[in-house]
């Protein structure tokens, strides 16, 4: 048995060494980690707007940045749906801000080719972060991506997989009379013959709580942007998908 003093000194020494090692690594790598994080968010905005890597292609951080600068225009809108020009989008925390909301336009030769908005909310274990993209008609889903969450791998974590997100593409967020209905993630499969199928997507078995959360926060986040999208819908002369 060793003396108390030895035990204390040895234990503190190990703690100190490990603590120093970890904080040193952290400060050294912090810059790269934050850059990776920022690039990953941009990549997800691009992917939601259907600009994505081909199979076996891997974009470098610079490539993502270039594409983002080329195609994406960011703006801030108020809760009344008006464009706010005096606030920098970098200063908005999309998770907590309830008066100003960021929005990303996809521009193709000066034409708007889609809108992406952040969607954030609780799943089962954690907060999910993602982007929902709409077509220029502001009623059809162009894509959805989740880039950060801590759901169970193989169950809730499937929300980030293509087989799940692809189900959203082409679904409508408004009903035939133009009211916002958002997207509903079902428990089980969508009955294609049902009248509601236009705004429903297949659920994930074993992840009912996660997908319930998704249904709820998609509605909440779309409501925030509704004044803005409503104006766009009124300007689009013909809703091509009407029954």
């Amino acid at each position: 048995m060793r003396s108390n003093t030895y035990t204390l000194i040895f234990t503190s020494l190990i703690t100190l060494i490990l603590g120093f090692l970890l904080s040193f690594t952290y400060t050294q790598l912090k810059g790269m980690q934050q850059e990776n994080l920022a690039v990953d968010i941009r990549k997800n905005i691009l992917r939601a707007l259907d600009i994505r890597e081909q199979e076996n292609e891997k974009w470098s951080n610079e490539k993502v940045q270039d594409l983002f600068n080329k195609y994406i225009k960011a703006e801030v809108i108020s809760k009344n749906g008006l464009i706010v020009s005096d606030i920098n989008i970098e200063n908005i925390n999309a998770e907590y801000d309830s008066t100003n909301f960021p929005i990303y336009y996809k521009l193709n030769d000066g034409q708007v080719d889609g809108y992406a908005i952040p969607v954030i909310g609780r799943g089962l274990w954690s907060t999910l972060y993602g982007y929902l993209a709409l077509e220029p008609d502001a009623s059809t889903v162009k894509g959805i991506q989740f880039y950060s969450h801590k759901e169970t791998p193989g169950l809730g974590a499937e929300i980030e997989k293509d087989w799940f997100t692809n189900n959203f593409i082409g679904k409508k967020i408004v009903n035939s009379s133009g009211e916002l209905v958002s997207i509903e993630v079902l428990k089980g499969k969508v009955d294609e013959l049902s009248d509601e199928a236009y705004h429903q997507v297949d659920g994930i078995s074993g992840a009912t709580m996660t997908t319930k959360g998704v249904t709820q926060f998609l509605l909440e986040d779309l409501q925030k942007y509704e004044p803005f999208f409503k104006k766009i819908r009124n300007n689009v002369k013909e809703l091509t998908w009407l029954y």
Partner: protein
Amino acid sequence: MAILNKKSRSALYDPLVKTNPISLSVLGICSALAVTIRVDQALIMTGAVIFVLSASNTIISVIRKYIPSRTRIIIQLAIIAGLVSLIDQVLMAYMYDMSKQLSVFVSLIVTNCIVMGRADAYAMQNPAGNSFLDGLGNGFGYGAILIAVAFFRELFGSGTIYGISMIPDFVYNLGYENLGLMVLSPGAFIVLGLIVWFQKEIWKEKVK
């Protein structure tokens, strides 16, 4: 392998089957349940555990004579947790995609009883070289069971192996359905239980 003496050999090979950490000592069950839904996840977890296990075993073995016995568990845990956080940081900076895939698995390694079990039971008594081999052996033994469980769970639960569809469409047309139970935790218990039973009863008798 002539370079390894008998003790080193048993350190490396025994944990593969004879003293397998999962099926004989029933350690590391928590992660064996969580990450065996699909084979690709089990593979990633296996790689990470092999690395942490052999590294922590080596480090602890090197300083084993100086570790005070009363706080040895705390020190072992600190070293393991430090090592895991270190890997996490490095992955986040240099291999961001990989770190995203590993996400929760990394923190699961700290709570993996095999890592601490081997540190306390083996690395504290044996020299660094053998401890390293013991870490490798246990890592592979753990991985073998993990992948076996994942194989059955993915095959019967999702009808795929490594994400590739294994069950032809006409079988589904005949009325076959994927077993939802296999995707959930009880499925892992059942498969794991069968493997343990197979090894303890049937296979052992054959070996005798």
